[in-house]
């Protein structure tokens, strides 16, 4: 068990280092010059050259890379080319906004998907189960931004119940915060719920076919009782795997949904930084996203061990 944790930690660190190289390489081949973007259309070549030296862009790529990851290793994310402000606090602020969105969406997805998927599985041959199944298929096909646009059209413009976009920090105005969070979280959450529902359904269907459920039924338990006592825990393993993957999808989906709902989160910071060629900010934000995804996967791996004692044995 300890070995397994150590091995996973090793993989986590190696993936992190590999991704710094990839991210840096992508930024290096991206066309466009940060100094020229900062100085605009009327800048002279001398001015651009001088700013490039200030940014340190005239150094060899290897030196630029080393100074960047050297900073990362010391938890120093560097200074933005464009705003000259330290990047760490900016990312922290924006990350909190995105976390609100992603976590709320995840909760919505779980609250919808677990009961719905279970019902679908228990009634999988009956019309109601088939109907729910078809509906979730539609949900899978809808991208989150489209769901967002539809929700805005109906609930903000049409009915006027909720604001169409914007963001208010919870400590400033909690009511407005909830109102503005609802639609973006729903548009991310519903789509994820549709995906998750299908996994919950098939996980439960698989479990229901297992011998131990038949045994439990033979002891006189109803299907629901058998599922609750013996099936849920087994069914949760594939579902947790998918949850981990979905968290990554949600972070990426948030980038687009933040744009649709004008939310100042990590996604809008990333898009702005890309268009301004604020390369250090782009690199840092992508690394934060990479770190988040890797850590989630790491935690999911550890959760397997907690949920399924058999894995602890086999890995010994």
């Amino acid at each position, binding site marked *: 068990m300890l070995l397994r944790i150590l091995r996973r930690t090793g993989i986590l660190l190696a993936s992190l280092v590999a991704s710094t190289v990839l991210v840096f390489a992508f930024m290096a081949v991206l066309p466009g010059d940060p100094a020229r*973007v900062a*100085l605009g259309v009327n800048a002279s070549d001398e*001015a651009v050259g001088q700013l490039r030296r200030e940014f340190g862009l005239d150094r060899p790529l290897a030196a630029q890379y080393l100074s960047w990851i050297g900073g990362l290793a010391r938890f120093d994310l560097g200074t933005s080319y464009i705003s000259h*402000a330290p990047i760490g606090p900016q990312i922290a602020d924006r990350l909190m906004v995105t976390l609100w969105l992603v976590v709320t969406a995840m*909760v919505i997805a779980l609250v919808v998907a677990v009961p719905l998927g279970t019902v679908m599985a228990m009634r999988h041959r009956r019309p109601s189960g088939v109907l729910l199944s078809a509906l979730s298929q539609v949900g899978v096909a809808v991208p989150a931004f489209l769901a967002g646009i539809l929700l805005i059209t109906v609930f903000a413009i049409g009915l006027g119940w909720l604001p*169409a*976009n914007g963001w208010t920090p919870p400590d400033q105005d909690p009511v407005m915060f909830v109102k503005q969070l609802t639609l973006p979280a729903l548009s991310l959450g519903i789509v994820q719920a549709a995906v998750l529902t299908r996994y919950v359904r098939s996980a439960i269907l698989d479990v229901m076919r297992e011998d131990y459920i038949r045994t439990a039924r033979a002891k006189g338990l109803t299907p629901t009782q058998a599922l609750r006592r013996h099936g*849920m825990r087994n069914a949760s393993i594939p579902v947790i795997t998918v949850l981990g993957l979905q968290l990554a999808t949600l972070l990426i989906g948030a980038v687009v949904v933040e744009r649709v709902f004008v939310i100042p989160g990590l996604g*809008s910071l990333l898009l702005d930084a890309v268009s301004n060629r604020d390369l250090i900010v782009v690199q840092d934000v992508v690394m934060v996203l990479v770190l988040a995804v890797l850590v989630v996967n790491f935690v999911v791996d550890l959760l397997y061990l907690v949920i399924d004692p058999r894995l602890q044995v086999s890995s010994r």
Partner: protein
Amino acid sequence: MKSTRFVAALGAALTAALVAACSAGSSTNPNPSASGGGAAPGSDKLTVGLVAEPVSLDFTTNDGAAIPQALLYNVYETLVKLDQNGDIKPALATSWKVSSDRKTYTFDLTDKAKFTNGQPFTAKDAVFSIDRVKKDWTTSLKSAMDVVADAKAVSDTQLQVTLKQPSNSWLYKMTTRIGAMMAPDGIADLATKPVGTGPYEFGTWNRGDSISLKANPNYWGPKPHFGEVVLKYFKDATALNNALLTGTINVIGTVQAPESLKQFEGNSKYQVIEGTTNGEVVLSFNNVKAPMNNLKVRQAVRYAINHKALMDTCWAGYGTLIGSMVPPTDPWYEDLTGLYPYDLAKAKQLVQETGVANTTLRLRIPTLPYAVSCGQVVKSDLEQAGFKVALDQLEFPAAWLTTVFKNADYDMSIVAHVEPRDLGAVFGNPQYYTRYDNKQVQQDLAKADTGTPQEQITYMKAAAKTLSEDAAADFLFLLPNLIVADKGITGLPKNAISESFDLSQLGRS
């Protein structure tokens, strides 16, 4: 039993995540009223939706129109300012005199103005601000101050500026950001805490979202009606429209999708204001590279484009047709749209004559709304005349700046030149991306700048006509300034012809 443990664990994890997000979320906005200071003269609040958020608040080191749009005339004031007709009017300078050799300007300054850090505004601050443009600014706009030989404070309220040679454009440029008056003690943190003498003082900046300006309680002029004006930034034109429709904002400062105006025009809750801008949408040519170095090819392009139909298709018919690089609000405007009327037969004949049909022209446009929607129309117009056109979209600003602007690796592009009075900048310098080198135009521009105001008009007219006849570019149309606002809001800047989104006149009827 066992399943409850799993659910409990999951619940605990989610709660922990929520709590973490919650407690840290409070750092998103430090105290919003921290820099408000003093009693607000009005409690009325207005939110204006705009498209481009500034990357920094320091226009001495960052180019980009968004910074002066928010700050100029609102937070920073200038000695002279541009009014809605394009005329130069007094601001911090109550009057000014020009010497007979037209090299010395004497400004009488108000003695009432105060910076928001409490210090009075004097001629010494004006000297400091002018000298600082030459010394410490890094953006290229600072070159407009090169013509200044000396600036000195005659008294606290009198400033004398001596130029190396007479220059009409200098006084005009003093209405732009380079004329912004700053305090020696107010420049410590230009990027986040601007200090000026304007009707508003800088409030807070929620990065990625909005900038709030508070009415300046000690303003020396008429106090603004609104106690707070929030400039809220939207990347997406639809999101901007939705924000007005749902009451999140009160004003759309610049409409980016004119076809969407219909939903507001018939609605009694809103007013639609149409004005003009300095934004000439130019179909620019690479004037030194074959085949665009051939006059007849350039003429063929100009004859081939049906400007009226183009403006109807790609900008919903809003805008003004122009025949050269001069908007109607400039004193030397003349209607030159007749020089190259739409004439498909003539275009076809010129295409035949020059054999240009064998070359594929690269139309490389930036990913901006007007360019994307007009690019397709230009391509199809040109193809009807027999041209072969390859349309490329280059990401704006980064990729377009490097490929088209710096390396001039293009045949044609479409870009709105929004700087005021930019004929000289775009067509007077052979190094500029248009690569246009015409001695006659350059001489006329020089004479216009050093001559009397009347001579300026004469020579600018001549330069505008020459470059249009020479087909240095095609001028598709002039961008309109389209504002949508809640009914009852008054004093909105109808014309976007200065660098500022001037909030000083705003009120409510």
